[in-house]
């Protein structure tokens, strides 16, 4: 697909002499832009377009239609849909609340240890999905080290309560970052103005701060809603008989070997996810009163009034302690024979992960994520640049497709890949490429895994690029053009260095997300390629929590190490000597 080039409405009198004119002044004549746009579109089609298409055709095949029909008629399916939506609503609310409390404490409340709190809030981003669930079972489950060990209580955390706790603690960082950004960019003079009118601190909070944050809160809620209804890992481990659409689709594919049913359940899951994503994107973000890019207009006043400070700090402190104990369990659990039950020290789990049977997963996963991250990061920058600077009409669509990796549940994407790429792709009877996923795939399915990694991790870089570019005056790039640089050169020599921190963000998130993603991967792993997250699932399933904890710890370690290296490489080597003001 190329960008539309439309003839100008030139009056006939002029057309006779004038050479053919192209309308869109932004891009029409630049071959580099046309080529880059074509490449981007082709990639998006491969990693998102085709699999979605495959999923849709499968869901609307006879067997799929049968399941779709039963969605409406069968009370069991009603139950599953209701479960899914309820989970989304609850986690959306609690996660946003936790994120808000952390952000509020971080920005507005006076206390020591802000940096530590910030790091604590960021840990879930680099942690694999099972870490929290497994640790929570170990601590608070039927034989939980705390519930049973200390209080002698046989707690049942399987089902909705456990899912709520685990998902809220896993996903709240998204809300935290969103709301923190908003709180920081709120003009403190507003607070001051309200206080100057005689409002007490508490009233300022409810009449000024909260209303200004409503778009941010709503946006976070919706994002968390999408994330939690899409989650597969935790319902599998912790769901008990609380079935949600994601786990149902998984069962259909891996247990009942009914691909069409899987597609139908996925489609049902995708609808609310997509709808909420659209609302978030086109309604909430438009309503936002605070400019996201705005720098703080002054130092934010830190609240020291006890009526706010003490309750906020107590709750945040409790949550922080919970998070610390969970990750401490992950860390320690890897060294215990049967964590929580037989607490003898052992190195067997780490030996299994680092040197034994489990080490292939570590190597495979890291390599694939290392391949996917730079592609996703650069692709994100490129799409951001095309969307903000170069394309007019196609820009909204391309931006939207790029962001779909965030909106489409991983389960959906994984099933889509399996359906579309488990056989060679033929166009007009010609084989374009061989099978990429499934048992007979080339490279044991590694290609499909890298593709799904890219699709999943593209949005963060793209969003960072879009907002970074919107802050850079377009004249800077025009100056480069005016000095003789073509579009590609300008992108390389001017744009990319200027958005290097967006690139770094993109790469970091791409790598972390690739390493920690599970829901699409469980459908794509083959005997020939092992992925850590799906290995962890297997270990947890068979009750070998020690191995799971060791895997989780190693995975977190790898992610942190690579992020550290990325920072060093990008800042010191790639853009060496090009200091620039932030």
């Amino acid at each position, binding site marked *: 697909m190329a960008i539309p080039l439309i003839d*100008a409405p030139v009056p006939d009198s002029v057309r006779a002499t004038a050479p053919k*004119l*192209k*309308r869109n002044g932004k891009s029409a004549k630049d071959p580099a832009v046309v080529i880059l746009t074509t490449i981007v579109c082709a990639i998006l089609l491969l990693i998102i377009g085709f699999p979605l298409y495959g999923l849709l055709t499968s869901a609307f095949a006879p067997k799929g239609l049968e399941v779709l029909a039963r969605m409406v008629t069968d009370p069991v399916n009603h139950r599953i849909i209701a479960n899914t939506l309820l989970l989304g609503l609850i986690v959306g609310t609690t996660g946003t609340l936790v994120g808000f409390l952390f952000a509020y404490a971080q920005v507005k409340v006076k206390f020591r240890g802000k940096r530590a709190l910030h790091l604590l809030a960021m840990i879930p981003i680099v942690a694999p999905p099972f870490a929290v669930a497994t640790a929570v079972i170990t601590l608070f489950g039927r034989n939980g080290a705390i519930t049973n060990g200390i209080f002698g209580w046989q707690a049942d955390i399987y089902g909705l309560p456990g899912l709520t706790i685990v998902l809220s603690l896993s996903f709240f960082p998204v809300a935290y970052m969103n709301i923190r950004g908003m709180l920081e960019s709120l003009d403190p003079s507003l607070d001051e103005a309200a206080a100057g009118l005689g409002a007490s601190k508490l009233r300022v909070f409810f009449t000024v701060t909260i209303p200004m944050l409503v778009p941010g809160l709503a946006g976070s809620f919706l994002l968390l809603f999408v994330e939690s209804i899409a989650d597969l890992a935790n319902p599998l481990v912790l769901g008990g008989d609380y079935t949600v659409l994601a786990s149902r689709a998984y069962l259909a594919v891996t247990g009942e070997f009914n691909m069409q049913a899987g597609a139908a359940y996925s489609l049902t899951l995708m609808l609310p996810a997509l709808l909420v994503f659209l609302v978030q994107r086109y309604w909430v973000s438009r309503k936002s009163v605070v400019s996201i890019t705005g720098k703080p207009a002054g130092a934010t006043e830190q609240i020291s009034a006890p009526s706010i400070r003490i309750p906020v700090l107590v709750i945040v402190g409790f949550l922080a302690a919970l998070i610390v104990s969970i990750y401490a369990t992950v860390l320690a659990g890897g060294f215990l024979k049967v964590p929580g039950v037989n607490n003898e020290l052992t190195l067997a789990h780490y030996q299994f992960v680092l040197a034994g049977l489990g080490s292939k997963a570590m190597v495979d996963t890291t390599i694939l994520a290392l391949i996917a991250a730079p592609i996703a990061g650069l692709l994100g920058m490129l799409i951001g640049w095309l969307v903000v600077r170069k394309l007019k009409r196609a820009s909204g669509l391309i931006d939207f497709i790029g962001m779909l990796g965030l909106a489409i549940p991983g389960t959906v994407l994984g099933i889509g890949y399996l359906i579309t790429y488990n056989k060679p792709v033929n166009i007009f009877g010609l084989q374009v490429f061989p099978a990429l996923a499934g048992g007979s795939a080339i490279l044991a399915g590694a290609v499909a895994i890298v593709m799904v990694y890219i699709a999943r991790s593209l949005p963060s870089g793209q969003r960072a690029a879009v907002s970074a570019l919107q802050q850079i005056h377009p004249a800077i790039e025009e100056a480069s053009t005016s*000095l003789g*640089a*073509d579009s590609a050169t300008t992108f390389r020599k001017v744009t990319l260095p200027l958005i290097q921190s967006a690139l770094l963000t993109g790469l970091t998130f791409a790598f972390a997300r690739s390493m920690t993603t599970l829901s699409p991967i469980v459908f794509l792993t083959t005997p020939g390629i092992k992925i850590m997250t799906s290995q962890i699932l297997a270990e947890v399933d068979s009750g070998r929590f020690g191995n799971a904890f060791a895997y989780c710890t190693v995975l977190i370690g790898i992610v942190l190490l690579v992020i550290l290296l990325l920072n060093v490489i990008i800042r010191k080597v790639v853009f060496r000597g090009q200091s620039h003001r932030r």
Partner: protein
Amino acid sequence: MDNLTAADPTPITADASEFAPALESGQVTLSALTKRYGNRVDDPIAVDSVDLDIRAGEFVTLLGPSGCGKTSTLRMIAGFETPTSGHVTVDGTDMVSVPPNKRPMSMVFQSYALFPHLSVRQNVAYGLRLKKTSEKRLREEVDTALTIMNLMPYAERAPHQLSGGQQQRVALARALVMRPKVLLFDEPLSNLDAKLRVQMRNEIRRLQKRLGITSIFVTHDQDEAMTLSDRIVVMNQGRIEQIDVPEQVYRHPSSIFVADFIGRANFLDATLLVDPVDGRARAFALGLEREVATHPDVSLEGEVLLMVRPESVILTPNPAADSVHGEVGRVLSAIFHGESVEYEVETDTGSIVALVSDPAANEIFEPMDTVSVGIKADRGWLLPVHAES
């Protein structure tokens, strides 16, 4: 920042002729140049069939109110916007199919648009590097450009370590070093403070005269246009209202719009008595019959107005409504500006603004004083009421 600004008043010196283009190159022609944003025929026209011939080495200013299409016109010349129709040619070569990075032009932006991640020297060298200039040659050229612009002491600094004026010089050096046939400026001085603006514009003018590079300069500041230009192009709503040397634009504006936009003007009801001959005619205005210069479109058929600049109005005490002094009026307000006093005077013809320069202390009128109102000989300009272009 303060000490940086203080370092600015170093005029551009050195020998600038190095960057002079080959003689008689840089002739720019716009023909029927039109821009309509949006693709529907009823979308408003930003630039409406502009025709303009710019001689090699000429300094032309595009002047007009906000939104009249100056920037759009300039950006079409630079190639950043594609014309909806019409042509841009440089030295006879049609530019429409030439991408902006291949056009023999350099643009200086309002926001300076320096590359923030490169030093001053790297900024100036950027374009030459792309041309694969040899390292030695590149150094010489960049040094010359930096010297001309008095930027040598700042060569290794980052752009944000410079004052606004210095940043604008870097932008200019970066453009000059490319030896363009045409220099394009989009309100380059509007981010500077008033004093620096005057100083920079004098320097730009000196440099341009010396180098003889064709320059197209967009501004909405009439002072800038008057002092810089060989010719001024006054635009309004996408159309050219007038193209002329500054003095003509000021004294003999082609329309009420131009008269009003450039400087200040009184428009007085007048009656034409005879058809104009050789651009002059007799008309009755401000209580007297007078001989005035007339706009070519003035004829006995249409209504006319007499344009008088405030500084051409003469106020005299000892009121006497006679054939010498014209009408009698009453002073409504008197504002002391220092070098001049501005009066608003109420007459039978309407209220008139007068600017009396360098008044003696005892000659300043007070509100409610009665004065007689006259016009300096030969300063009136008779305009048709509906002169639209």
